[in-house]
């Protein structure tokens, strides 16, 4: 029987890293939407200014949280892991030849 040892510090870092990584991703989605609206021309200059200020504040707040909690590394590893998952997914979709190879091996 194998026993999984969980260090409490690791667990805390892992969970916080995951949460902050998700917040970052949501922020990036918001920012993309904001830029698209600006490009679409549906915002006044004042509105763009306010959006920009708000996004900057969020950037700063997230950076501060990362430093205070000491989870910058954990966040990075969650995001790198997600990037790899997405890469694999796209590789499978865009490269049916390789997908076939994987199926054959299985």
């Amino acid at each position, binding site marked *: 029987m194998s026993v999984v040892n969980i260090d409490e510090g690791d667990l805390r870092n892992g969970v916080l890293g995951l949460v902050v990584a998700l917040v970052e991703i949501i922020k990036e989605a918001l920012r993309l939407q904001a830029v698209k609206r600006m490009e679409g021309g549906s915002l006044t*200059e004042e509105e*763009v*200014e306010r959006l920009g*200020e708000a996004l*900057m504040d969020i950037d700063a707040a997230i950076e501060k949280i990362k430093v205070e909690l000491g989870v910058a590394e954990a966040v990075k590893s969650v995001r790198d892991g997600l990037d790899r998952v997405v890469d694999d997914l796209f590789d499978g979709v865009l490269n049916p030849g390789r997908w076939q190879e994987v199926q054959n091996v299985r």
Partner: protein
Amino acid sequence: MERSVHTSGPGTGGQEQAGRYVYCVAWTGEEVSMGDVGIEGRGVYTVVHRDLAAVVHACPAQPYESSDLAVVAEWVLAHSRVVEAAWRRWGTTLPLTFNTIIRGREGTDAGEELRAWLGAEYPALRARLENLQGKAEYGVQVFWDPGLIGMDVLASSPELVRLEEEAGARSRGLAYMYRQRLERMLRDGIEARAAKEFEDLYGRLRRCADGVHVERVKSAEQGLQMLANLSCLVSGERYPDLEAELERVGQRDGFSIRLAGPLPPYSFC
């Protein structure tokens, strides 16, 4: 997990000899021992059918398995060393995947089973070997410096230049938004450039190779981004063309090339 090594029973071979680990099939009728150069120092020898030889070692009829990556890496290295030795010795070879093991069925031992397999597959194996004759595989990796390419993309688009100027002149929030927009457009521009460069490169290499496989690009290292990771099957006569094409690419600003080979044709059999 460590593999347990049983000693074989005298004469019979027993469990220890119940499988044949096959490294590759070489185009030769030479029945020969290659010495204890196999995985975990096993004795490697050829099993011949007509003018084809399977390069093998005798082992238990079970795959090599370990959760220790260093151990697996050592096995895979030993595998490729044997394939390479066979390839250097006999020229044309069909490398097999790591962990290809033939085992005997009821009434036959693994050696007989292997001979039967060579016999049954002879026409197909022979055709594939003929196809690979005089050719070798080359790994081609093309890198570029995204910073340098980015500056070039920026300079060649008046719209981006204008955005950059505007981003500097505005108030704090506006500047931030303009900078985001600039970065997005720049990224799109670099991606479009990468797609165009890749297509161009692929087309050029396709003309001097008998086969080109597109492998996955690996993540950036030392600030250099991998633009293309290709395996090319190239004949001796056309190799200078490949070299010339790559040299031309490597001389361009921000581009660099890594060429590995000649290698046994792992990706083309």
